[in-house]
């Protein structure tokens, strides 16, 4: 297992480098650059040239990438083109809110989606199942911003029960500002994860070993939760990994609508501003989390499906 993890980490390193290179090329391919973005409306071409020179954008792209890479090797992510602040500071600023959102979402998501999936599976084809399917799929297909707009309009503005945004708030000191964003964040993953749990649970409940466990006189609740469920969650773990990835990758829409300045906001701003070092720094963070999250998911997956470890 350890050897497997180490090998995966080595591959992960290559992947991170590849992602960073790809992102560099993509950002290079974008029309305009940081100078154009900074110059704003109706810019004077002369001024753009000046900004370009001031930012060092007149250097060949390859040189800049090389310099950035050698910095990375020393653990230095460089400085923002636009503001001149170290990229690490940006990431540190954005990571706080993003982590809070991601962690709280996951803590709520796992039990909730498992519960819904199990309930739907136990009533497969029945009214409860269909209602749950309709509600979760409905929520899954509503764009986040639409859901957010409605929730804010109703609970934030009309009823005034909850703060409509998190503007200027300290997320930990005023947890009530997190309620609406979390509801919006959870709507989609609850659907995708609970539907996988449901499908897995239906298969597991019909399996020979569950039938056999019942015959052995094991209580129904234990049969459901200790025998059927572990089999049902194995496929959902992969989906959870993708969700975690998504949560850590910055949930742009939710951050924008509720004014939570996390990694997603930084990403959008950095891409819009063509602030290449910041985009690169974010790409490193995203790629590393993806590699780690998927590794963890696979290790958990092996734990849940011991047979697959033999194959891997």
């Amino acid at each position, binding site marked *: 297992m350890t050897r497997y993890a180490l090998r995966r980490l080595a591959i992960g390193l290559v992947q991170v480098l590849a992602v960073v290179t*790809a992102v560099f090329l993509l950002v290079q391919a974008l029309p305009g650059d940081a100078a154009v973005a900074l110059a704003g409306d109706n810019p004077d071409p002369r001024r753009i040239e000046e900004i370009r020179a001031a930012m060092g954008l007149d250097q060949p792209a390859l040189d800049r990438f090389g310099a950035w890479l050698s910095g990375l090797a020393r653990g230095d992510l460089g400085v923002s083109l636009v503001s001149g602040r170290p990229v690490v500071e940006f990431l540190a600023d954005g990571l706080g809110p993003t982590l809070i959102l991601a962690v709280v979402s996951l803590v709520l998501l796992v039990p909730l989606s498992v519960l819904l999936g199990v309930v739907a599976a136990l009533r497969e084809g029945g009214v409860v199942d269909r209602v749950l399917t*309709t509600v979760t799929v*409905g929520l*899954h*297909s509503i764009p986040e*911003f639409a859901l957010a707009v409605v929730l804010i309009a109703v609970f934030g503005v009309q009823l005034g029960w909850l703060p409509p945004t998190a503007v200027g708030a300290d997320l930990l000191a005023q947890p009530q500002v997190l309620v609406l964003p979390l509801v919006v964040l959870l709507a989609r993953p609850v659907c995708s994860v609970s539907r996988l749990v449901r499908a897995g649970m239906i298969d597991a409940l019909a399996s020979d070993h569950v039938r056999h466990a019942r015959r052995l006189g094991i209580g129904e609740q234990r049969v459901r939760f200790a025998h059927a469920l572990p089999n049902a969650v194995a496929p959902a773990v992969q989906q959870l990994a993708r969700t975690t990835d998504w949560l850590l990758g910055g949930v742009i*829409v939710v951050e924008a609508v509720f004014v939570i300045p996390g990694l997603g906001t930084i990403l959008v701003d950095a891409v819009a501003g063509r602030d290449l070092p910041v985009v690169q720094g974010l790409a490193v963070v995203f790629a590393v989390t*993806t590699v780690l999250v998927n590794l963890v998911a696979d290790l958990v997956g092996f734990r849940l499906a011991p047979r697959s470890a033999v194959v891997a």
Partner: protein
Amino acid sequence: MIRVLLVAVPVVLALVGPLFVSDDVPRGAPFMPNSALGTDFVGRDVWQQVLLGGQTVVLVALLATVFSYAVGVPWGVVAAMSRVVDDILMRPLDLLLAVPSLLVLILAAAIAGPGLPVLIGVVTLVNFPDVARISRGAALEIAARPALEAMRLQGESWWRTSVVYTGRSMLRTLAADAGVRLTGALYLVASASFLGVGVPPDAADWAVMVDRNRVGLFLQPWAVVVPALLIVALSVGLNLTFDRALRKEAV
């Protein structure tokens, strides 16, 4: 019955809606309640926009889903055939999966500029690695089945073994996936509009309508609610239909 209605209403509206739209639409002030569903954010009649706007949503979501499968399924099946090809084909996809899909969306759309083909391309790009992974898994399992080995022993052609049999056997797995994937495609189209990529901001498109008219939610809720409900109805209807089809097949 409900299931059928949920799918049929949006699809029929999308397909035949444009036929009922007159060419010279009078423009008024934005968000005025002067007709059945009022006006939208640039003063166009919401009902006319609803009639016009289904085609792109349904088209983009359907085409992008179809393309994701058209690319992803052969990709996965070919990868499943040999270990060497597997590495060549699947490693780059791991890479693509390692870049957050929204970053892909933003970058790709920024490079290619707006337009429906671009949007379809981007949604396909975001979706097909997943499809390829699922198909590869399914194909690997099918390739090990005695039924396929028996066919090869019979000297069956590549077409019959790899395409007809493997394809058909993957249907169940893919059908289970398709409902959620279509929903995901609808959602991506809508999110693209929110991020301002891929579609012109005043396009007649249900997803764009939801985004652009949300500022007028307090003045003219229909402009948001009607297109949003149509999208939700389509997704829910499709998923219920797939669920039902799968349950039938399992029995």
